[in-house]
Each structure stands twice: as C-alpha cells, then as structure tokens.
C-alpha cells in the first residue's frame, strides 16, 4: 500500500457533492476534494495533484479535463481515462451510471476499484433521483396545463369537468397526439384569441 489516495470530485451541486464524499470516505481510505465548475477547471484540479478525478459524464465541462491527459498538460504525471484500461465491464458500468474517471497511470487496479465501485453506485442513485425529479416536475406541469384546458372548455361549451376531459382525450386520440399536447395547444390558442 502506498500513501492515501487523493480523489477530486467535480460537482457543482453541494448536496450531491456531500453525498458522494461521504460514500467515498466510508468505502475507502482516501482524501476527497470537491471542485465546482469553472472555466479554469483543469488547472484548479492539477493544483491538488489527485490520483483519481471523478466527474459527471453529462457535464459539459468534461472536455476541459481532457487537457489532463496530455503530456504537456497541467498535471505533471500522465493520466489515463480509467475506463480504457480496466477489465471486467467496469468501464461500461461507469459510462452507463454516468460517471467518468481520470486516473493517474500506473495506479494499482485493486486500489482504484473500490473508489470506482462506490462512485458508480452513488452516481447511479443520483441519476435515478434526477430522472424521477424531472419526470415528476413534467407530470405536474402537464397536469396544470390540462386543468387549465379543461377550465377553458367548461366555460366555453358549458360542460362539466368529465365531459371536458373526455373531449380533450377524444381529440388527442383522433389526431394521434398526447392529451397534454392538445391541452397546451388549446391554452396557447385561447391566450392568442383573448
């Protein structure tokens, strides 16, 4: 065993960063530093001389980290993207979970694995939560639009709520569109006509 590993996590969201740090510290004996996004990312990371850098695969700032892989880049030691030289599907798992890792060349695989495994599990959870949140938000917004469309129909045609919804649904089915889309169109049109 060598000295303690230094892991840099690039994460803007404070709560998520804390969750990742806690998980990493619980799983392995390592030093964890969190850096938010900035336009000087690569140099700020290099200042910590990390052994491993973890970043969300969906982050557009990821391309800045590619400079770490260059011999002439800001990190003195050569860096490889971990996923390229690891075996056993760990790479695919990481990409699917939405984490990419940059690892200093020559670091023993048995030291990398627990860190990456933990990161994968944590990022997967974060991604799930994010999807759930986005879905819920979308569903809520759609419901709001549908309610407004129903209200408009009830007033304009003097019908009750069930009849208004039935009319929306029938129109959607006839036109091969989603109820939410028909409702959206109706609300937009009524605003224009007002």
């Amino acid at each position, binding site marked *: 065993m060598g000295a303690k590993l230094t892991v840099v996590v690039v994460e803007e969201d404070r709560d998520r960063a804390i969750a990742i740090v806690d998980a990493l510290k619980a799983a392995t004996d390592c030093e964890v530093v969190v850096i938010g996004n900035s336009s000087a990312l690569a140099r700020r990371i290099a200042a910590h001389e990390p052994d491993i850098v973890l970043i969300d695969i969906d982050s*557009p700032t990821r*391309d800045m980290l*590619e*400079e770490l892989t260059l*011999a002439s880049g800001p990190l003195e030691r050569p860096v490889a*993207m971990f996923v390229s030289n690891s075996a056993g599907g760990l790479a695919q798992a990481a990409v699917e979970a939405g984490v990419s890792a940059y690892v200093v060349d020559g670091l023993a695989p048995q030291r990398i694995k627990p860190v990456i495994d933990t990161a994968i599990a944590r990022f997967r959870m974060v991604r799930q939560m994010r999807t759930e949140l986005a879905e819920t938000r979308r569903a809520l917004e759609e419901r709001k639009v549908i309610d407004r469309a129903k209200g408009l129909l009830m007033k304009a045609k003097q019908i009750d709520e069930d009849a208004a919804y039935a009319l929306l649904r029938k129109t959607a089915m006839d036109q091969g569109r989603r109820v939410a889309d028909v409702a959206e169109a109706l609300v937009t049109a009524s605003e224009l006509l007002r």
Partner: protein
Amino acid sequence: MKTVTLPVAYMPLVDAAPLIVAQEMGFAQTEGIALDLIAAPSWSSVRDMLAFGRVDAAHMLSPVPVAMALGLGGVATPVSAVMVTSVNGDVIGVGRALEARLRATGFGFDFADPRAAARALAQVTDGPLVFGVPFPFSMHVELLHYWFDGTDLGGTKVTIRTVPPPLMAEALAAGDIDAFCVGEPWGSVAVDQGSGALLLPGKAIWSFAPEKVLAVRTDWAETEPHLLRRLMRAVWRAAQWLARPDTRTTAAEILSRKAYLDVPPELIDRALNGRFTISGQAEQREVPRFLEFHDGAANFPWRSQAKWVARRLALRHGLPVAETMARGSEVYRSDLFRAHMPIEADLPGASEKLEGAIPHDTAVASQKGHLTLLADSFFDGAIFDPDLPD
C-alpha cells in the same frame, strides 16, 4: 427489409447536419435504418459512448480518430473514420476587449486575410494571448497552431485552452480567454450575445480542412459491413442533398428544432449560406463555401488528410514523425469508402493527394471522369506531400 435502429452520438452543431438530415429527410429510411440520434454534452462523451458501445456511430472531430490511434487522450479503442461529413466551418473570433483594441488601430475586420489579422493581433497584444477551443484534439487547434506558426503571432506568447462553447461567453467575460476558435453556430451566437467579433473563417487558413468525420468502432465495421454500408449511403445522400443551394432554408429549419440545435434558423442560415454578421455593429461578410458538405469529393476520407493531422500531432507531442503518420493514416478508411459507396459516387483515382496543391477548383482523374476537386490551399502556399514526412 426490416428497419434496424442505430444509436448515433453527435454534438449539436451546424455540421451535424448530414446525420440529422439523413434521419429527418428519409435517407436513412430508404436504406432500412433509423438513426437514434443522441445529443452529447461534450466531445469526450461522444468518444466514450462510441468506444464503449453505447452508440454504433458518431459525429466526430476529424483529428480524434487519429489521436486515438496514436494513444493520445486516454481512450485507445480502435476507431475508423469511414467518411468525412464536413469540410471547413470553424470561425476565429476575439472578445470585446481585444475587438476594441483592434478597432483603435484602424483594423478593418475583413474576415479574409490571416496574415493581416495576425499582424494586427500581435500589435495590440502585450501579455500572453489565450485562445479557447472546444477540444484538445480538433481542427480548431490544428488551424490555430498553423496560423500562429506562419504569421507574426509566431513571436507572441499564445496559449490554447479547452473551453466548452456554451461557456465561451463566460470565459471571455471572466478574462480566462481573449479569443476563440469554434464551430458554428457558436461564433454567431457569440456575436449576437455581444461577446465579441469574428476575425477569420477557418478556411482562410486552410481552404479545404476536413472538419468532422463519421466514425465507427473498427471491429463493428468488420462485423456489421451491411449496416455500415446502409449508414454510409444514407449519410452520403444527406450530404449530397445539403450541397444543393435550394435545400438550405429547409435544412436550417430542421436543425433549429428544439431536439437538435435549439437556436433560431436565422443563426444557422449564416453558416449554410456563408453570409455572416461579424460584429455587434452588424458588419456583413460573405464567405463562399464556408461549410462544404459534399462537393469536390468532400466526403472522401483522404489518407493524406489523416497524415497531415498525424504529422502535426507528432511534432507537438514529440512522437516519431514517419511512424506516426503511417499509423494515423490507417484510420481514414478510403478502402471502406470505395467498397460501400453508392454507384453514383464518383471515386477519385488515388487515396492520397498533395494537400494544398490545388489553387483553383480543378477537374481530376476519377472513375467516371466528372470529379472536380475544390481549391485546398494553405494560406502560406505550402504543399504537404504525404510521402515526405519531413
């Protein structure tokens, strides 16, 4: 024929048009495939999605497959560039501060002369000059270095830094970068946001620079030749469609959709028509063939193009030149292009050419004898011979 769905990664840029049009205008469907187009948040993620099998094909910066073959950049999965999907299309621009200093010297922003632009920049620069580019392995980087080397900027301290285009405005405002080289629509977005002014089109430096390629995993190309052929034909026909001037309005509308670039069609139109608004003062500049999708055998992956890129990378990263050029050239698959192209594609007689040797559009030997190659000069008049590494 059963429709096969192929996942394809791309970056939302004007030059992703051949892939988007292949799907939207039915060229993919004609070949019995459907492209599941996945917009990527970064170039590294495009590369990783392709390398690790999340997608079967990708819209890629032309130097990336070469860099991967050379072991540069961390991921070493063998990848093949089977077709060039666009030639030229980058712009070089400066931030507001630099623009003001240039104007104070009476610089006219002709958007054409690389030597004059470099001279003017060198004159107004005292400290180091920092350029932002989207990715360390890109035609942007190659064009900038080539431009610095051959002009007054060679004597100035110039640095190139990776900044994702969506963050370019912020980086300019924060003073992290002074200037930039990006693909459209990002240059025009910068002008419209008031972040800066455009200085040169990429083609002023090299008038026929391969910009993006269609890339697939090399093992996939071997195990799925029939799918590859269908994919290549669909993209080739889309590129041919895009080269017709009467399709530009439609193309701009399609690309502007929320699912693709999500910017107004008028912005996209500038690159497609080569008519630019280069500054906040609404100065107009015209660049014929600013972005070429098809004409002049633009889609042919010339091995000499890969060798040019490989040589430049070798010199900068301290690799043996001759060996690096040989290894790099193998990833531009002129062999697969010859094997898979539709009957109407007029194939050039050779797979390598002297780069920079055509000052004017010229008819050349080809299978059917109708091929005209477009001017491919470098601004300094140099000619690159792929057989002579030094």
